[in-house]
C-alpha cells in the first residue's frame, strides 16, 4: 500500500469531501494561499477557490461563530484553529453555542461543523503553543472529539467528521504531520466510537490516544523483550468512547495504563481509568494507572519540556511494576 504523511491524509480527506459535497467549505487563518503554517491545506484553494477556502482575520471567536451559524442553516463548515491552545478563545462559541443548539432546540437545529486543530508538546513552542486540550472539550455534552494517531486515522476520521451532523473537534498531533503511514488509495471512512486494537497481548493493556499510541507501541515492543505481553488500544475518538473494547481488553489482561498527552489531573486518562475501575474492578490485579502530561505549563527549555510528557521508557517501568504486583503509589 502507498504511504502518505498525516498532513497529506488530512488534505486528501478534506479535498475528497469538498468534491463530494458542495456545502462543505473551509475557513480559518491563513488556510488559503498559505495552506496553514504546517502546510496541511496547501493546494486546496487552487482547486476550490477562495469562496470555499476562506482566509479569515485573526478573530477566532468570530470565525468559529460564523461556522456555527453557517452550519445551523445548511452548510458544512470546517474551521481551522491554527493552534489547539486557541481553544480558550472560542469556548463560548464552541461550548455554549455549537454544542448546545441541538439539545436546546429540542432536536430542531443541528450544527454539522468540524473544528480541526492540533495538540502536542516537545516542539519547543512554550506554554501557549504546546497544549493538548482535548479534555476541555470532551467534558462538554454535544461535542464529539476525535484524536487520530496516524495518517490512516487522520483521513478516515476527518471524512467521518465532515459527514457527521454534530460539532466535531479533531486534534491532530502537530509533531506527526510529516509521519508516513500506509493509507489506501480507495475511499474509506473510520466510524466514530470504534477503538483499534493495535497489538494484542495478555498481561497488560496500554490505552493511548493520538501521539501516545506511538509511545504505547514502542513500550509494548520493549516489554515484549522482557517477556511481558502488552495489548495496545487506540480509542480513536474519546467522544464517543468505545468502552466495550477497552473493557474487554482489561478483563482479559487485568491491568491497564491509560496514556494521553493532556495534563494528567482531571484529564482524559482519569475519565477512562475511572470507567474501567467502575466496570471491570473485579477483573483487576492492579490499580489502573494514568499517565498524562505533567501538571505544569509547558516549559520552553528542551531540558525541561521533555520531562513533561510520557515516554516509552516510563510506560515500560510502570508496566513492569504493575505486572510484578508492585505498588506504584505507596499508600
Amino acid at each position, binding site marked *: 500500500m502507498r504511504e502518505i504523511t498525516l498532513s497529506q491524509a488530512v488534505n486528501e480527506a478534506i479535498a475528497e469531501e469538498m468534491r463530494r459535497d458542495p456545502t462543505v467549505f473551509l475557513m480559518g487563518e491563513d488556510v488559503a494561499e498559505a495552506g496553514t503554517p504546517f502546510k496541511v491545506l496547501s493546494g486546496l484553494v487552487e482547486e476550490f477557490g477562495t469562496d470555499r477556502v476562506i482566509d*479569515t482575520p485573526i478573530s477566532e471567536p468570530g470565525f468559529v461563530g*460564523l461556522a456555527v451559524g453557517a452550519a445551523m442553516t445548511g452548510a458544512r463548515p470546517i474551521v481551522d484553529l491554527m493552534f489547539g491552545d486557541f481553544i480558550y478563545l472560542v469556548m*463560548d462559541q464552541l461550548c455554549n453555542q455549537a454544542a448546545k443548539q441541538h*439539545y436546546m*432546540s429540542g432536536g*430542531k*437545529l443541528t450544527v454539522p461543523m468540524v473544528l480541526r486543530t492540533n495538540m502536542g508538546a516537545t516542539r519547543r513552542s512554550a506554554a501557549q503553543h504546546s497544549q493538548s486540550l482535548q479534555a476541555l472539550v470532551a467534558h462538554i455534552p454535544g461535542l464529539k472529539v476525535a484524536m487520530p494517531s496516524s495518517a490512516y486515522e487522520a483521513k478516515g476520521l476527518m471524512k467521518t467528521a465532515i459527514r457527521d451532523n454534530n460539532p466535531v473537534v479533531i486534534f491532530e498531533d502537530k509533531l506527526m504531520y510529516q509521519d508516513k503511514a500506509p493509507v489506501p488509495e480507495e475511499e474509506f471512512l473510520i466510524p466514530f466510537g470504534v477503538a483499534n486494537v493495535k497489538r494484542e497481548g495478555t498481561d497488560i493493556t496500554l490505552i493511548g490516544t493520538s501521539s501516545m499510541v506511538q509511545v504505547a507501541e514502542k513500550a509494548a515492543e520493549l516489554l515484549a523483550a522482557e517477556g511481558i505481553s502488552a495489548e495496545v488500544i487506540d480509542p480513536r475518538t474519546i467522544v464517543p468512547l468505545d468502552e466495550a473494547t477497552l473493557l474487554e481488553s482489561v478483563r482479559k489482561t487485568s491491568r491497564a495504563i491509560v496514556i494521553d498527552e493532556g495534563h494528567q489531573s482531571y484529564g482524559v486518562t482519569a475519565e477512562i481509568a475511572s470507567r474501567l475501575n467502575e466496570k471491570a474492578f473485579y477483573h483487576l490485579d492492579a490499580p489502573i494507572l494514568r499517565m498524562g502530561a505533567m501538571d505544569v505549563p509547558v516549559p520552553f527549555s528542551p531540558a525541561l519540556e521533555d520531562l513533561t510528557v510520557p515516554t516509552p521508557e516510563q510506560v515500560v517501568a510502570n508496566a513492569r511494576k504493575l505486572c510484578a504486583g508492585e505498588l506504584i503509589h505507596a499508600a
Partner: protein
Amino acid sequence: MAKAKSNTEDYLRMYRQMVRIRTFEDNANQLYLSAKMPGLTHMYSGEEAVAVGICEALTDADRITSTHRGHGHCVAKGAEFKQMFCELLGKAEGYCRGKGGSMHIADQSHGNLGANAIVGGSMGIATGSALRAKLQGSDDVTVCFFGDGATAQGLMYEVMNMAALWSLPVIYACENNGYSEYTKTEEIAAGSITARAEAFGIEAHQVDGQDVLAVNDLTRKLVARARKGEGPFFMELMTYRYHGHHVGDINREYYRSKEEEKDWKENRDPIIRFRAHLVSEGIATEEDLDAMNAEVEKDAAEAVAYALDAAYPDASEVDQHVFAA
C-alpha cells in the same frame, strides 16, 4: 408617523402583532408572578415596534437571531402562542420540547434561529447564516437582534469586520433600550454606537424604535439592498424596556426613575401611537381595534390554559437530542 406602506391589511397586521407581543408578555409576567412559571424571563414590553417593524419586512426564508429578551422577536417572526407558552412552562409541546425555555426559544419553521442567553452570543451565528446565504447563492437576509449591552462584547467587532469585508447579507439591529441590565447605557458605552459600525464601512442608521412604520420603512429598504449584495447594514433602534432587566427586577429606582418610565409609557408607547395613527387615517375604528385586542387576549388566555394543562416531557427525553443522528 413615517410613511411605509399603504396596505391596510399590512398595517392592521403590524398593529395586531404588536398587541400580540404585549399580551404575550402580560400573560408571561402573570405566570411568573403567580409562581406558575419556572425560572425567570425578560420582558419585551415597550419594544414591540422594533421586532414587528423589522420582522414584517422579512419572509420566512429570512433568518433572525434573538436574545434573552426574545419573546417579541419570536412572535413577530410568526410563532404561535400555544407552543410558546408551552416552552415557557417547560412542556413537551413547546417549540423546543421544553428544553430551551424562555431564553432559548427557537422557531425553525419561521426562520428564528433562537434566543441566546449569552449577551451578544448570537452575533457569530447571524453572520454565519449570512455567509452561508452568500456562499450558496441564496437571497435570504439574516437580522441579528441584540441590545445596547451587547455592543460591549468583542465578538461584535470581529463579525462586523468579516461581514463588511465579504459584503454579507446581514443586518445588525441594535435595540437600544437605554439600559445594559441594571446600568445606564451611557455608563457602559463610549462614543457613538453607530460610529462603531461605520468604522468598518458599514452603513448605519439610527431610527425611532417606537415608530413601527419608520422601523418597517427603513428595514424594507435595507433588506432589499442586502438581497442585492449591498450589505451589511447596522440599525440602532431607540426604544425602551417597560419592565426591569428581568421579571424579578421590581425595585429599580436606584438605576431609573418612575417618572422616566411613566413618560415613555404614556407619551411614546408604540402601540398607542400606532393606534392613534390608524384611527386618524381612517384605517380602523376604535371599535375595530378594541375587538382585535379582545381577540388576541382571548387567544392568549386559551394558550395559557392549554399550556398549564399540557404534559411535561417524559423522563426518557432527558438524554435525547444531545447528539443529532
